[in-house]
């Protein structure tokens, strides 16, 4: 049997313990967004919300700038990032288009049936 994770894959993040450790503050913040009251708190006062999780200034900036690729690189898990997307009005495909460096329309044009969403 080969090694389970043998090396980097181009343009791909492999979420392992090192990355998870780096992103632990961000992922805790995302987990809080599973509560409607916390989502309201985020929408009411985003700065006050993100101040509660001990994020570094650089991490806060990723949220402020909606820098989704930056969040992934900083150790935010993709499924946890979907919660930030949802509370900021960014669906998966909008976030995906940004990470690909495309507009939403350009990205949809690459799909077989862009209505399946």
């Amino acid at each position, binding site marked *: 049997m080969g090694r389970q994770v043998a090396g980097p894959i181009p343009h791909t993040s492999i979420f*392992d313990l090192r990355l998870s450790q780096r992103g632990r503050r961000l992922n805790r913040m995302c987990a809080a967004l599973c509560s409607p009251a916390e989502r309201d708190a985020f929408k009411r006062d985003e700065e006050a919300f993100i101040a509660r999780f001990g994020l570094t200034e650089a991490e806060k900036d990723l949220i402020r700038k909606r820098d989704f690729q930056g969040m992934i690189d900083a150790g935010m898990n993709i499924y946890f990032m979907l919660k930030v997307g949802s509370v900021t009005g960014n669906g998966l495909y909008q976030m995906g288009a940004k990470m690909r460096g495309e507009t939403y329309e350009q990205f949809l044009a690459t799909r077989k049936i862009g209505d399946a969403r």
Partner: protein
Amino acid sequence: MGRIVGGIGLSHVPSIGPVVDRNRTQEPAWKPLFDAYVPVRDWLSRLKPDVAIVVYNDHGADFTFDQYPTFALGVAEDYAIGDEGFGTRPLPQVKGDLDLSIHLAESLIYEHEFDLTLCQEIAVEHGFLVPMNLCFPHSANDWPVRAIPLQVNVIQHPLPTARRCYRLGQAIRNAVESFPAQTKVVVMGTGGMSHQLQGKRFGHMNEKFDQWFMDQLEADPEGLAGITHQRIMEEAGAEAVELIMWLTMRGAVRGQRVHRHYYAPMTTGMGLITFEG
């Protein structure tokens, strides 16, 4: 004695949830997917399973990385509907089978040496609910089967190997067969197929790999269990590694393949394969 009457491998794409809730299943973009489940639902009404063991992964609705189990089994009378960040879907609570859960825990831990994390509360989310929606239409306040969640870590490496997932399925089969009640069980392996949701490779799919995976799952599951996480991620995308959960289903069910379907409209290869036990 308990009996495995069927196994189902299927994808658990989250966008299917709202499509069900808003009655959009007959829209042209979604109809091909839901049509594929018409014969599967007929088959299931003939098999009349009492319990579905749903092998799935949580996506940060109820498990966080502060404590993250490799294999976690629900041992409860019922399971709440989780909120994974988009609100709680209007679905009836899921009824469990406490006796079967306790038997599975004892048999898997004592006899088969799978040291599971045991959970008296799990709020289930799309990884579990979308497969239930596709196979077991619910009424206003109930589901047609009892269900047991088996949560697998497929998102934070190191993940269990594909072979370990396959062996767990074989152990589940033995455990179900030693359950004293006449309980009919289906095992659902969920997730995948090819997809990647991050990085510049967002949207990557590989139908050739997905079809090969279903071929091998049917013809040579023991061989397929040797596949590495690296190979799945390279060929089918980082998030496709969820497919190792299909091997748990396959380990639990012997017998003939019945249905097979594939639909990949957007960013995920949505596969479906069933086996009759």
